[in-house]
């Protein structure tokens, strides 16, 4: 029988979590605020588009995904006060003007003939960018001090991967002619250009080292 009073390390040998991580409290809060802003704009867009797409399967998928992104926004909203941001509206803002331009362009299509343009914006441009940014945050932040953010990002990434796959399959089933392929490609390039100008969904540094005056890498 093992001795329950024998001293053991706080971390099991296989537990390699480390502290600190790449982000300060302030930088993690800033990113969380930008994610919340973007998730809000996304779930609003999906909700608005439901009535504008004639394809029944697409209509139902948009309705379901609308809630996924609303839940992500709610998770981020709940995390902000825990990151010393009691006014959760203050940091719920776009990273810069360029990301606003991107979102405006993303939600611009309305006509029932433009389902491909709507879906390309979400599933071939925005969701891959979100997956990249959330993964960078997940891997870069401290797995001990910022564990609550990581846990939420993990749930969100699970949705993002599954939603991306579903959206991509819808797109592949909708693109049937060279002209439709050209529309999809052109749309993706336009939107990618806007995100490039924005520096990513959280602005410059979305996937890179945090600027010296903003972060506190140790």
């Amino acid at each position: 029988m093992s001795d329950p009073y024998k001293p053991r390390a706080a971390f099991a040998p296989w537990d390699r979590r480390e502290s600190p991580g790449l982000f300060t409290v302030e930088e993690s809060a800033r990113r969380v605020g930008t994610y919340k802003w973007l998730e809000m704009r996304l779930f609003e867009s999906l909700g608005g588009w439901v009535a504008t797409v004639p394809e029944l399967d697409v209509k139902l998928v948009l309705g379901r995904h609308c809630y996924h992104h609303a839940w992500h926004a709610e998770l981020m909203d709940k995390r902000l006060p825990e990151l010393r941001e009691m006014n959760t509206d203050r940091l719920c803002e776009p990273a810069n003007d360029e990301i606003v331009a991107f979102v405006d362009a993303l939600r611009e299509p309305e006509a029932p003939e433009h389902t491909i343009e709507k879906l390309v914006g979400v599933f071939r441009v925005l969701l891959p960018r979100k997956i990249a940014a959330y993964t960078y945050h997940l891997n870069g932040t401290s797995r001990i001090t910022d564990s609550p953010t990581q846990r939420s990002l993990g749930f969100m990434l699970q949705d993002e991967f599954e939603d991306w796959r579903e959206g991509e399959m819808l797109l592949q089933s909708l693109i049937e002619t060279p002209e439709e392929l050209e529309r999809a490609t052109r749309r993706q390039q336009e939107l990618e250009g806007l995100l490039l100008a924005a520096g990513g969904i959280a602005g410059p540094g979305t996937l890179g080292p945090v600027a010296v005056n903003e972060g506190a890498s140790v």
Partner: protein
Amino acid sequence: MRKQLPPEMLARDSRFVRTSIMDQVMDPRNQLIGQRDLGSARLQPERPAAGDRARNLMHGIFTGEIQALEGAGRTTFDFDDEQAPFALKLDMARQCWDESRHVEISVELGAWIGTEIGEYSEATFLYEAACAPDPILRLCGVNRALEGLAIDVFNTMKEFGDLSGDPVLEFCEDWMLADEGTHVKMGSDWLRGLTADDRERRERALDFQRTVDKLFSLGGFRGETDENPIQLARKLRQMAGFSTDEIDELAEIALQAKADAEAMVAGAGGA
């Protein structure tokens, strides 16, 4: 994408056929059909036309769920953060998911009882309740009036499933009923919360709900007598938060709607 999408812009594939509710109510054949004395108008399995009526009703549920989905979706988009609180939009997004599931359930149930998409026409009067420019009016129209109607309709279909020995129909309708109670509560909570300091706005919202409820009574389609195919589900409405006074008022509105429709049809016939 514009704010406030009008009903005529609702996107549908080629199977759907659109009609207007006034055309349906004012159909001169209604008067002749009404003159036939066939006993109770309730949905009962022993009636010869019960199967066709159930299929027609199921198709109406299907198109109604699509419009409820679209209405909830538009409420997430049409209002900015000042007009509609963040938590209200989260509720509407949740409702989008629920209504998507209801459409899926309705498609499956439609196939189960022998109808298919496009077999019956679609009127957009349910979505029209979701076009109010004030989010509180919209929630009263959709979450209290439309979702309240859904409680009555689903309960009628659930009972029909029970009476006709169809456990699949009964099971699915019961699950949808659970969601509708949640949606009604959402509407009631937001009505109370957002108008706590604005009695005039609350009255406007409740007036709008009465108007929509009258429209949704469809000239006698819903009520509490044997002449109403859809019965007011008093107990379930109480569970969803409607007061006895509100349900009594709704029963009165339904009677008025029936009398109005009969007068209109008689007037049209005499013209």
